[in-house]
């Protein structure tokens, strides 16, 4: 009979972003950091209301619910931004990624609704993470909470973290502390006792009733008899009293895993040049790659969707052309932001959107970076991660299909024998013996420096043999030659047949070239220089 495992005490960390609307805007535009910022409800065309205000704006007296003109009168340098649900969704998803990087059991306790929001609603986002069994990874609970706090910072979110026995206590701890607060196991009631009752988030009715009873601290509520509280304040009062006594049991409701990595931004005005789009895109890529890093994933492709300004779209265009979606393949999975950004920007520059862009969305298709263990006895080489990133960066620079290992293809015509295979070097073979010193006359293989494409040339012949060659790359009298050597390829394919006569020709400039005459070209005497022996 197997011994039963000891049950771990429940420990829950809550990460709360107090002002999600402000943080989401700052995450998309780091220049807003430290500035007095308000987020407006743009549903009201006239006198838009302030939905959320940054600490800097609040310090000047600005509060949610004011109209913009009131706020500007208080803080003239105020920066106002419209509410962007796309940014908020991205920020909430980033918060979920942070939780998932610690535990598969995460619950989004609270997030601002997508529909129009009243100014008095709380605009925070709250995430609960089951951290019960992280003792082997972190020496103390304080370090778990600190790691969550720093992780949120890396994702561009200013959050507060609380860690306690249940999610409600942890949430109260997060709000009470401001930074990182840990409530030791069994110390819930003493910790809560000195906190104001408002931190339990009671409804207006219950708060008024408790005020009438003279109950202002959580400890005072805990001291009241349970039956009397339930009788006078109903189910909500009983629940709050349980929390106050440290007896509440609120199980975590884990969120099903959703593997979608999307970052989006709504631009303040339509953008019609690719350089500005690239600038806006950079922040999306940075945020997306930070999220993938949270999950130890890499992007194998990204899909960039541009929402086009309807005013500029040709009415004759097909329906549904308001979006410009493109998938940018990445040569090897990577989370190197520079690489992904370069690839996406190159795609925009090669095929610009047909109308000004009003919003951008970037979705990552995920893969794992190549798992491989470097051998102790192998020669040093690039790590798989670095190699994948390198190949992706090189492909972004020189183009797809131009980076890899050379491949010799089965063909007869030289240019058809050239291919590029994926560069994935296998573990090194056993070290070869040291090269034996050779004699100075030992022959080596002669290589051809190929001209791609072959260079057209004018060749004057005498009795079928080339005598003079003229071309932009090489010109001169023929000193010696060998050939012709006839090559035929793909004669079995309609339209694909190639028949050429090849020559090796030493010109008066001293170099030896490879020439061919295309026998199937529409023009007679179609000569080309294929390369020079180098």
């Amino acid at each position: 009979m197997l011994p039963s495992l000891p049950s771990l005490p429940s420990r829950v960390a809550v990460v709360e972003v107090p002002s999600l609307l402000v943080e989401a805007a700052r995450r998309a535009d780091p220049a807003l950091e430290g500035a007095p910022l308000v987020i407006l409800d743009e549903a009201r065309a006239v006198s838009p209301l302030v939905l959320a205000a940054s600490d800097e704006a609040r310090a000047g007296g600005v509060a949610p619910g004011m109209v913009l003109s009131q706020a500007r009168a208080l803080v003239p340098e105020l920066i106002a931004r419209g509410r962007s649900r796309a940014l908020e969704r991205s920020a909430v998803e980033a918060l979920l990624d942070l939780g998932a990087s610690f535990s598969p059991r995460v619950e989004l306790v609270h997030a601002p609704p997508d529909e129009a929001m009243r100014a008095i609603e709380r605009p925070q986002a709250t995430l609960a993470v089951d951290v019960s069994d992280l003792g082997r990874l972190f020496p103390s609970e304080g370090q778990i909470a600190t790691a969550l706090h720093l992780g949120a910072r890396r994702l561009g979110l200013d959050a507060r973290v609380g860690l306690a026995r249940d999610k409600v206590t942890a949430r109260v701890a997060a709000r009470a502390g401001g930074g990182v607060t840990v409530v030791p196991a069994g110390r819930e009631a003493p910790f809560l006792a000195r906190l104001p009752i408002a931190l339990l988030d009671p409804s207006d009715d219950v708060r008024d009733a408790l005020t009438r009873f003279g109950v202002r601290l959580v400890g005072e509520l805990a001291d009241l008899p349970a039956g009397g509280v339930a009788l006078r304040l109903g189910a909500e009062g009983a629940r709050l009293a349980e929390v106050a006594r440290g007896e509440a049991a609120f199980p975590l409701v884990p969120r099903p895993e959703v593997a979608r990595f999307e970052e989006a931004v709504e631009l303040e005005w339509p953008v019609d040049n690719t350089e500005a789009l690239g600038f806006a895109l950079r922040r999306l890529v940075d945020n997306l790659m930070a999220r993938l890093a949270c999950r130890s994933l890499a992007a194998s492709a990204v899909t960039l969707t541009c929402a086009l300004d309807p005013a500029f779209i040709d009415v004759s265009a097909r329906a549904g052309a308001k979006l410009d979606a493109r998938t940018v393949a990445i040569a090897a999975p990577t989370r190197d932001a520079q690489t992904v950004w370069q690839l996406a920007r190159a795609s925009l520059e090669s095929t610009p959107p047909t109308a000004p862009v009003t919003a951008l969305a970037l979705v990552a298709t995920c893969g794992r970076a190549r798992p491989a263990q470097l051998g102790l006895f192998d020669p040093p080489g690039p790590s798989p991660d670095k190699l994948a990133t390198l190949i992706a960066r090189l492909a972004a620079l020189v183009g797809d299909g131009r980076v890899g290992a050379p491949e010799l293809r089965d063909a007869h015509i030289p240019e058809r024998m050239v291919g590029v295979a994926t560069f994935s070097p296998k573990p090194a073979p056993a070290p070869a013996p040291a090269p034996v010193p050779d004699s100075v006359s030992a022959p080596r293989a002669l290589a051809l420096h190929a001209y791609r494409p072959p260079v057209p040339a004018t060749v004057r012949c005498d009795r079928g043999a080339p005598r003079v060659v003229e071309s932009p790359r090489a010109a001169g009298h023929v000193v010696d030659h060998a050939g012709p050597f006839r090559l035929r390829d793909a004669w079995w394919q309609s339209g694909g047949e190639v028949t050429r006569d090849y020559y090796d020709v030493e010109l008066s400039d001293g170099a030896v070239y490879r020439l061919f005459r295309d026998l199937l070209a529409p023009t007679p005497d179609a000569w080309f220089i294929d390369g020079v022996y180098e």
Partner: protein
Amino acid sequence: MAASPARIAEVLAGLRAQTARLGAAAEARAVVRGVVATGVTAIDEALGGGLPRGRLTELVGARGSGRLSLTLAALAGGQGRGELVALVDGADALEPAAALDAGVALERLLWVRARTRDEALLAADRVLDAGGFALVVVYLVGAEQRRQRKPLPVPLPVPVPGSPSVRYGNGNGNGNGSGRVWTRLRERAERSRAAVLVVDDAATVGSFAAATLEAVRGGARWVGRGPGRLLDRVDAAVVVSRSKLGPPGARSVVSLSADAKSSSGRR
């Protein structure tokens, strides 16, 4: 319980094998700190064993002087210890068959088919930045000077007098190998401990290179008569025209055999 003699012998044999492997690994790491042998003995000796790691070496010469053949020989030498090598091909000039015949293991060669000289220099910068390559060849022979979106800062190189056989500048007045570019590549090479071989028409790396090798064209040799006439070989010589690693002037004659690559050979 005492171990049997057979068991003791087996354990000893295992220990000896493990010690030998550790010795080989230590030797390989010692090599990493040193040079990459090109396989051309006179050159290797003149350079102190081969292309120096962490430094730039330059190979220049006229058209048809065997620079690509020597490059492939160096790449094959760089793979001798099982390490990876890279060829940044500024002219997209490589034929895989030629690399194979030169003894290069294709699957351990990273080939970057750049379209311009600037692209090649940027690609080399990235390869060196990633690290892990024993030898990085920047092949700029015949590379085009195309205008780029973000051109590199390219002040004209300063001609260095006193070397009549070596021209400075790339011959078309657009000296792409600016000091800034080579300084950066040299720093990258030092950091990644890779040997960097820059192959070009004329010397542009200048004093940033630890040594400048010059390939000198010999003659072509032909065999047979009439329709059976074939290109047999091309002779070349390699001269160390400038070196910070030893006295310059070393000369090595190399015979480049056309037995497999030429159209004659394919026939």
